[in-house]
């Protein structure tokens, strides 16, 4: 008999029928009687004082039901990160980027809303603006927030071990500088929210990654008890970090709904999404590493500057993550991390898949390739020599349990045929490797609280023919509803096909922090496992009475209760569940999960802590056209250590998506601005995402691994797979070109220019020799 009956199997997604038939309702698909449509008016200037707002013309337009500005909403500052609450629902004194929120309208239909927005007259005094983080940090630069001098949003200085001493001992000390660009999550579904009141109770349907944080911040902003705010997640069309924090649509919609006494649906157009942003930060990254003659890393110094944009968003955490996660993959003792996150007059940046870590990882992996080249060591071999081992502690005090970094590298080398290819590919072709690691859930929540991180309730239906799992965990497409139902069925001894789920509704489902930091399989999964075992224990007690057996000798699997001593003695789950209901009332299981206390005591120590870390190695093979600079990725391999796998099909699908996103970020994607801070490409054609025609052959493979801190040994995969990606493509492109472009994206133009420069240099060099 197989060890598990439900987990470890590629069952179809629980929501797949709803999604292939068009039945699945996303927030924008919902309609309520008497519902109005609303939109937010945003600033056309990057930095300007608001002198006057005249809404009278807009209010007169037939069909307009309400127009609101900062005067109509709470002035309490908010932000997802309690470290810096620096946003207002609407700007009060000044606007800080093109797209800052100024006013909002609710009207009978969309056309009227757009007309009304044009009729709102805002008088601005335009102020000098700054768009570059280094310029923003200079004395005399325009001051964006009065409270933050020199536009320093946050400053980090961490020092572990003794980097200077390590460098002094090193055979080679090398410094490289890289720039990572601004990218945007660009989920295909635009953000929307529908707000409605029943007396003093507010209900918000929305496209969110975390109903809990929305509920928390909406309640705080309006001074409501949490119990009077109900946040319901509908189907969500992708998030990737961009739908984690309040968007302004919920706040504005709630006020418009209050004033009009009608439900109000607010939405972003595609260009509004780009302006609201919260995507990946632009980072300037200088890395210095000291190695011995064999390439063993003795110490590393990361010195970074981040363009945060106009507000904090999740940026404090992003800034810490940028440095914290660099210590995971390689074993070294001395580490120094310096970072400044600067305010600029651009849209605020936040957490995009991999949160702060993919770009520093790109820089580190490219830098290590340079080190390997300089030492004449194979880059994969260099990584193997430094690979972290299980049951170790990083210099910044992260405890790593399971870790198959070495096995990932070895398997990637084997399946990609690395040894036959490295250094032996024809001109224009290249192969590159990079590794990564990521948290399986953050050790601490975004705001300070002692609430459990996840909770679950399972209710068995009276006749036992179904069981409903209630979880706050948030399925945004990654498949948490499916894997959590598999886990529930496994723990109960039940079948996946009979599971139902209600998730992410703050009124009906128990608390959970939501979909971020790759936390749900481990954390929500742990709560679900406990709830399932609770059901099973109660059921076996009942069965013991019915079968006249000791419950300790009974077990349940795939809906059949059996005696472990006499396996032919069985009872169906349904019969026992029904008897339980008749005798005791509802059969309910409960579970919750709180991570152990993790991490050190230094400033910023909680960021990057996790009960478990995933590890991955990626290799890509590319072809560069010397004439045009055009890059074709031919094949990419991912080998993952993600612990026990609950649903292999969904797991590999996460890897596919990560390699796709990473490919876009490596070669094409970049949010660009004009000289006045206006986005040049706020749409899905000029912001160039890969299409089906761009994709290489993808191989996603696994290594055996079991994580003691996760239920059944699970770890994360969703974000971890994006961590090595940009580094792996960049290193392959470097291998193909023989010259390095030190900034992302590795656009055709940059590649073409670098190759031209290289040719000219070689020609020049040749002449000298003559």
């Amino acid at each position, binding site marked *: 008999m197989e060890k598990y009956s439900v987990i470890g199997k*590629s069952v179809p997604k629980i929501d797949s029928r709803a999604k292939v038939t068009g039945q699945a309702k996303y927030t924008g698909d919902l309609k309520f009687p008497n519902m109005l449509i609303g939109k937010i008016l945003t600033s056309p200037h990057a930095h300007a004082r608001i002198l006057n707002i005249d809404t009278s013309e807009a209010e007169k337009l037939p069909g307009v039901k309400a127009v609101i500005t900062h005067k109509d909403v709470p002035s309490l500052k908010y932000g997802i990160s309690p470290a810096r609450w620096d946003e207002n629902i609407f700007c009060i004194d000044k606007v800080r980027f093109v797209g800052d929120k100024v006013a909002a309208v609710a009207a009978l239909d969309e056309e009227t809303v757009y007309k009304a927005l044009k009729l709102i007259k805002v008088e601005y005094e335009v102020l000098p603006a700054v768009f570059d983080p280094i310029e923003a940090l200079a004395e005399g630069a325009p001051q964006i927030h009065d409270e933050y001098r020199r536009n320093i949003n946050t400053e980090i200085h961490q020092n572990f071990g003794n980097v200077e001493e390590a460098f002094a001992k090193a055979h080679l000390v090398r410094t490289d500088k890289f720039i990572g660009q601004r990218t945007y999550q660009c989920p*295909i579904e635009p953000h929307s929210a529908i707000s409605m009141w029943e007396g003093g109770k507010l209900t918000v349907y929305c496209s969110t990654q975390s109903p809990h944080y929305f509920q928390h911040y909406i309640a705080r902003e309006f001074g409501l008890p949490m119990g009077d705010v109900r946040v319901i997640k509908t189907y*969500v069309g992708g998030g990737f970090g961009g739908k984690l924090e309040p968007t302004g649509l919920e706040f504005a919609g709630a006020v418009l709904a209050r004033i009009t006494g009608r439900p109000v649906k607010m939405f972003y157009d595609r260009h509004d999404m780009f302006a609201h942003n919260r995507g990946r930060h632009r980072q300037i990254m200088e890395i210095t590493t000291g190695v011995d003659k064999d390439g063993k890393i003795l110490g590393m110094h990361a010195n970074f500057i981040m363009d945060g944009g106009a507000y904090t968003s999740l940026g404090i955490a992003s800034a810490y993550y940028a440095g914290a996660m660099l210590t995971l993959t390689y074993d070294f003792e001395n580490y120094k991390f310096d970072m400044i996150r600067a305010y600029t007059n651009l849209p605020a940046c936040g957490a995009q898949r991999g949160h702060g870590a993919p770009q520093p990882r790109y820089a580190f992996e490219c830098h290590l390739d340079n080190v390997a080249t300089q030492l004449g060591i194979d880059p994969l071999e260099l990584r193997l020599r430094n690979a972290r081992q299980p049951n170790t502690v990083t210099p910044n005090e992260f405890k790593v349990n399971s870790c198959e970094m070495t096995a990932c590298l070895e398997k990637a080398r084997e399946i990609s045929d690395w040894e036959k290819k490295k250094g032996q590919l024809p001109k224009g072709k290249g192969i590159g490797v990079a590794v990564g690691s990521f948290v399986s859930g953050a050790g601490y929540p975004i705001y300070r609280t002692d609430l459990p991180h996840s909770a679950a309730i399972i209710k068995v239906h009276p006749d036992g023919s179904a069981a409903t799992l209630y979880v706050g965990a948030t399925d945004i497409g990654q498949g948490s509803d499916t894997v959590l139902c598999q886990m529930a069925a496994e723990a109960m001894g039940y079948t996946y096909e009979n599971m139902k789920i209600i998730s992410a509704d703050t009124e009906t489902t128990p608390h959970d922090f939501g979909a971020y930091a790759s936390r749900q399989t481990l954390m929500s999964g742990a709560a679900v496992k406990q709830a399932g075992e609770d059901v099973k224990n109660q059921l076996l007690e009942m069965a013991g009475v019915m079968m006249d057996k000791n419950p300790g000798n009974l077990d349940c699997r795939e809906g059949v209760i059996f005696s472990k001593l006499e396996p032919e003695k069985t009872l169906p789950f349904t019969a026992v569940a029904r008897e339980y209901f008749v005798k005791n009332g509802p059969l309910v299981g409960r579970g919750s999960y709180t991570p152990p206390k993790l991490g050190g005591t230094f400033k910023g120590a909680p960021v990057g802590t996790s009960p478990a870390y995933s590890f991955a190695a990626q290799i890509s093979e590319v072809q560069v056209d010397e004439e045009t600079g055009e890059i074709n990725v031919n094949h990419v391999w991912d080998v993952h250590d993600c612990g026990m796998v609950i649903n292999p099909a969904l797991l590999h699908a996460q890897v*596919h998506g990560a390699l796709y996103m990473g490919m876009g970020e490596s070669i094409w994607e970049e949010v660009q601005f004009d000289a006045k801070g206006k986005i040049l490409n706020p749409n899905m054609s000029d912001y160039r995402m890969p299409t*089906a025609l761009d994709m290489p052959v993808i191989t996603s493979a696994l290594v055996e691994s079991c994580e003691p801190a996760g239920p059944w040994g699970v770890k994360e995969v969703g974000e971890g797979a994006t961590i090595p990606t940009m580094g792996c493509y960049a290193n392959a492109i470097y291998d193909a070109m023989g010259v390095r472009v030190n900034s992302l994206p590795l656009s055709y133009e940059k590649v073409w220019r670098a190759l031209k420069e290289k040719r000219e240099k070689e020609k020049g060099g040749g002449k000298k020799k003559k």
Partner: protein
Amino acid sequence: MQGVKDKNGVMRYVISLIVNGDYLTVTVKGNTLLVDLLRQQLNLTGTKRGCKLGNCGSCTVLLDGKAVSSCLVLAVEADGREITTIEGVAQSEKLDKLQESFIDNAAIQCGYCTSGMILSAKALLTKNPHPTETEVRTAIAGNLCRCTGYVNIVKAILAAAEA
């Protein structure tokens, strides 16, 4: 096409069309987009709106069998024509082989692009029942997906073509 002026002087046109086999007569403005007629007036919200610029393909429907972005089609242009939306792909309870194949091949994540993907694939398979992988990729090149890297979508379409 018949038109009436409303009290603000805006023309409204009466159009007749077949949607998923149903003969319908509706009134639209000259600037009403097909996507908004389907979603807002006919409540066929399986057709998604992702960009309103013809970039993403999530609003793809079949117009006389051809895959089109319904945000680039005026409702009045659909007068007298036949439209299939995702709601019309299954035969009552029986799913289309493409829908089955998307489920079996784990080709769905968030699902927001799924309706458009299936309709683009449907148009392809109707015209070309045994496409090559490149033909499949070309047929869905106008449908953006941010979740899957297209890997399982391409696999699902090829498997449906084999079935």
